[in-house]
């Protein structure tokens, strides 16, 4: 067994931010278990990425390199890591919980008879079983936390949620760089990925907005949107929305806040009728001040809010519009 392996992803020629967070998580797990921690970089050309990873406190950095890994495919990445881990026999494998990882890591784990513990937010070990840490992940759209433990033999696969571990706690050092060349035939890559594209030119930049009023399912009907539009106008705020509102076509996609939409960091983020699924929270957690109005006292949005009002938005918002207008006169 070779300890902990962190599989990092590239973004704009560097290790992605969440990739750095995953390495920091790996160093933390190493401290907890006493195992060595390593990183693997995948691609057709990995020298620069490996060079960056080699400046961190890791035992080894492996360049898993093959021309067929130039563009991401689930088949290519699964094959490459299946072969690499057959040699390395890791105790733990850590991924950043990205869309790409969600596309292949469950298949890779299954191929090795394992199950990925995905979207992990924390881990700890009890003294009875130091080698088998407990991993926390969210359940029921963030309303509950679940404690998971790997019980079988072989590697324990986890992916870590964006923001759960801190990239600035990454320990610097030096690592030995090694190479691994997987055997991949073109016919084994069954999917053909095309170019990335955006649906339409983004016209609304919520990222630079100072105040955002965001609306969610609680608004019930498109016909009720003028209510929150009026609140946004009173506050001098941009209007944002959670995914279901844009899915329903009630507001254009470029008003969507969250992992599949825009990431925002306004001074004030006012969430109206938004329960606060994690996909939404990752898009707004950089906000300076968060206020939330929701009828469900157990809504996860209240966990991340500075101020909360439990109530019917159709009563609270009109009152709020009046109060804001009075206060801003």
């Amino acid at each position, binding site marked *: 067994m070779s300890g902990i392996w962190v599989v990092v992803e590239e973004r704009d020629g560097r290790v992605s931010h969440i990739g750095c967070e995953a390495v920091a998580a790996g160093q933390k797990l190493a401290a907890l278990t006493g195992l060595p921690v390593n990183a693997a970089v995948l691609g057709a050309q990995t020298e620069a990425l490996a060079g960056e990873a080699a400046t961190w406190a890791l035992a080894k950095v492996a360049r898993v390199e093959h021309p067929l890994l130039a563009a991401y495919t*689930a088949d290519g990445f699964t094959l490459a890591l299946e072969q690499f881990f057959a040699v390395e026999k890791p105790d733990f494998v850590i991924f950043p919980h990205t869309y790409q990882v969600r596309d292949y890591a*469950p298949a890779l784990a299954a191929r090795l008879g394992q199950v990925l513990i*995905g979207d992990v937010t924390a881990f700890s070990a009890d003294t009875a079983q130091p080698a088998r840490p407990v991993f926390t992940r969210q359940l029921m759209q963030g309303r509950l936390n679940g404690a998971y433990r790997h019980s079988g033999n072989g590697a324990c696969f986890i992916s870590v949620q964006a923001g759960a571990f801190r990239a600035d706690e990454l320990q610097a050092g030096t690592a030995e760089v090694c190479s691994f060349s997987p055997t991949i035939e073109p016919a084994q890559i069954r999917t053909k990925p095309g170019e990335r*594209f955006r649906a339409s030119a983004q016209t609304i930049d919520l990222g630079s907005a100072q105040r955002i009023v965001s609306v969610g399912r609680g608004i019930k009907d498109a016909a009720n949107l003028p209510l929150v539009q009026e609140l946004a106008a009173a506050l001098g705020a941009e209007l944002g929305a959670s995914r*279901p509102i844009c899915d329903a076509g009630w507001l254009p996609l470029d008003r969507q806040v969250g992992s599949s939409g825009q990431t925002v960091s306004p001074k004030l983020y006012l969430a109206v009728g938004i329960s606060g699924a994690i996909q939404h929270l990752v898009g707004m957690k950089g906000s300076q001040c968060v206020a939330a109005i929701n009828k469900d006292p157990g809504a996860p949005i209240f966990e*991340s809010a500075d101020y909360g009002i439990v109530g019917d938005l159709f009563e609270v918002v009109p*009152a709020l519009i009046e109060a804001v207008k009075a206060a801003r006169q």
Partner: protein
Amino acid sequence: MKIMVAIKQVPERDAQVRIDAAARWIEESGLQWALNESDAYALEEALQLKEKHGGEVVVVTAGPERVGPTVREALAKGADRAIHIDCADLGSRDALGVARLLAAALKPENPDLVLTGLQSDDLGQGQTGVIVAELLGLPHASLILHVEKTETGLTVKKELEEGWFQTIELPAPAVLTIQSGGNKLRYATLMGIKRAKTKEVRTVTAAELGVDAAPVVVLERVALPQKQKSTQMLTGTAKEAAAALVEKLKFEARVL
């Protein structure tokens, strides 16, 4: 085109969840249940493909007897028949265990396409479809918003992060996990509800499928999350709470 759609029954979105006495899962008695949201979109995509290309839509689900109404709902929307994998221990199976059940039920059907939702609204693991593809030896694509049948296979629109998309071509048969929002969901018509009553629902047990339940990963405990911030809850009438919020935003947070 024979399209199979793996669906899951989950607690209704607004359901008040209580942790069960053993703190292993939620208290299921008294809960309202619904079709998992992204599975509803998977079903919609399947029905639209059938309308364009003909064929059959078969829904597959695993769960205890209570899944009946959810299966009937799928049939009422237009699925032709259903396979119910009867198992009361779904919660003690991990993602691989559940995928093994589904794959065992799917394989003898030789589908041209398997669709399922991106993730369940209760466990939220987002793994089932990807593992089913692996177990069936089929190519897959995840987070799909749109599916087009081509002469050689499929062209799909995949969602990436931060508002980006990608077109992917893959051969059929394949497994696709469907993201919410790609289509407008239909409602069951009265005629559909009536017809659903006569449609075939075949029940098989986990034992008949030859799939055991031994998990690799165990959910040992559930708990309420710790608050990340100390939230000030503002109470009173709507008017009082609104006034208090404006006061706080103006003088405490200074963001007005």
